[in-house]
């Protein structure tokens, strides 16, 4: 209630509340910080402190980028595919893996937070699963789901659902008692309480969980694409890393990072649309 000084900053950031002047300045500042990082990178490579095999110059990465989007004789893009084909292949896998996690995570979290026995039995397994290194059990997924996309999507799903589940549990536990009691004395059944009170109340937490999950999924993409990962941006990074083509590996890392930042921006925008009442929860 009110527009107090203390949260003024935050409200400014809401896209539709931000005056154009601010947006312009934000953009300029970000560009500047990008410039500084690039400049530092260029400087580090120009000084030749380290071999270009470890930290290639921006120009080398740029050349790799050009290669990745062009055809030259027998070479078509990199590893036989154009950069966007690699990216799109990975993106599809991530969207599917995280997509399933977005369905399963909240449901599981809800079940864990709502039913004592489910929690006692299942929670340790979730805790167990969420700590397992993908590189340690990927072969099992391959034998179960094949070397094609299914096993990769499973791996991404397994990486993505635990943060969503945990966030949901935290969100559910945070729901105000008054709200639950109020609904029950309006006649809500247990399921109705979950649908009308618990779920919407936990929504901001679930959305945060989804943001974290997307980040995790991206960090897992290389592991998921170590087997039959071409086309795939992670598979490309892996294959070229093994060949010590650091320029391509860095190109991949940059593309992955930028894509992830863009997805996160979309998610944050979605959050503003879905839970405008977040600060009044």
């Amino acid at each position: 209630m009110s527009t107090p000084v203390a949260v003024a900053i935050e409200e400014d950031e809401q896209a539709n509340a931000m005056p154009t002047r601010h947006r312009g300045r934000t953009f300029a500042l970000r560009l500047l910080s990008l410039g500084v990082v690039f400049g530092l990178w260029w400087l580090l490579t120009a000084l030749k402190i380290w071999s270009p095999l470890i930290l290639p110059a921006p120009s080398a990465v740029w050349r790799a980028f050009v290669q990745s989007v062009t055809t030259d004789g027998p070479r078509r893009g990199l590893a036989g595919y154009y950069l966007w084909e690699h990216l799109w292949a990975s993106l599809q896998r991530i969207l599917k893996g995280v997509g399933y996690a977005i369905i399963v995570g909240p449901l599981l979290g809800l079940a864990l937070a709502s039913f004592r026995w489910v929690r006692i039995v299942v929670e340790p397994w979730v805790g167990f699963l969420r700590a397992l290194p993908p590189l340690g059990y990927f072969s099992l997924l391959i034998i179960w789901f094949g070397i094609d996309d299914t096993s990769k999507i499973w791996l991404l799903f397994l990486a993505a659902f635990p943060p969503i589940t945990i966030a949901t549990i935290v969100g559910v536990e945070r729901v105000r008692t008054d709200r639950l009691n109020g609904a029950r004395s309006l006649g809500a059944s247990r399921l109705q309480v979950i649908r009308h009170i618990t779920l919407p109340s936990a929504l901001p937490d679930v959305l945060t969980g989804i943001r974290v999950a997307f980040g995790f999924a991206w960090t897992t993409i290389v592991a998921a694409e170590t087997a039959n990962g071409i086309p795939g941006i992670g598979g490309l990074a892996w294959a070229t890393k093994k060949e010590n083509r650091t320029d391509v590996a860095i190109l991949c890392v940059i593309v992955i990072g930028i894509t992830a930042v863009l997805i996160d921006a979309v998610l944050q925008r979605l959050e503003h649309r879905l839970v405008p009442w977040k600060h009044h929860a």
Partner: protein
Amino acid sequence: MNEANDAAKVAGASGSGHPLRLRALSHTYRTERGATHAVGPIDLEVAPGEFLSLLGPSGCGKTTLLQILAGFVHPSDGSVMLGDQPVSAPAADRGVVFQQSSALLPWRSVRQNVELGLQLAGANKAARRTRADAELARVGLTDFADRPVYELSGGMQQRVQIARVLANDPELLLMDEPFGALDAMTREHLQGELRHLWRTTGRTMVLITHSVEEAVALGSRVLVMSPRPGRIVFDQPSPFANSDRPLSVMLDDPDFHEECRRVRSAIEH
């Protein structure tokens, strides 16, 4: 739960309902910092259709008692029966107006908040809206029906809560200082509405209030609780509940003043 609700709806208009029985009721909060004996022992019988006013010093256990009646808190001792059913969980037959308005849902508009109970019971859209708008008009918030609740003032939020519970037509109405955050005029208006509701529907009501005048003017029976642990130290019928005069006019009645003075002295001793 739903059966009780339906039964209440049928019985409601005729003024009948179920008697409320408290037996050796007592509650102690146990926390890491030790135990707080908040309320009891209390023995009490409330006939269907009574309007109970409950007074008592701050921290004497009024809210605790109300939460036990609502089914939110399990008493550490004793029992509560509504008719021949023990009260052990919240249900639609007992509506609650909370002391704070944090029970409202910020993702719903004011109208959607008021519609909640009807929606839960499966009422159709048109019926919900008609009923909600009627209750919103009753509490004077028609203009704010489409606002989210967090854009309302404290008193307005309190009124949304009242409308929400009234729309649900419970057999027993439990109210924890519902008019505490309201200005005199709005308050008087809502007191009138409440009294009208009570007279026409014959619902059983329990009203926690800090205003002796309000307690005496509205309640058909006035109870005063002792300081913690709260016990009933005063329990008398009040003759003013059936009067038609608004509170401001009653203030001129010496009988009314005399009654208030008696209640006040019960609180102070």
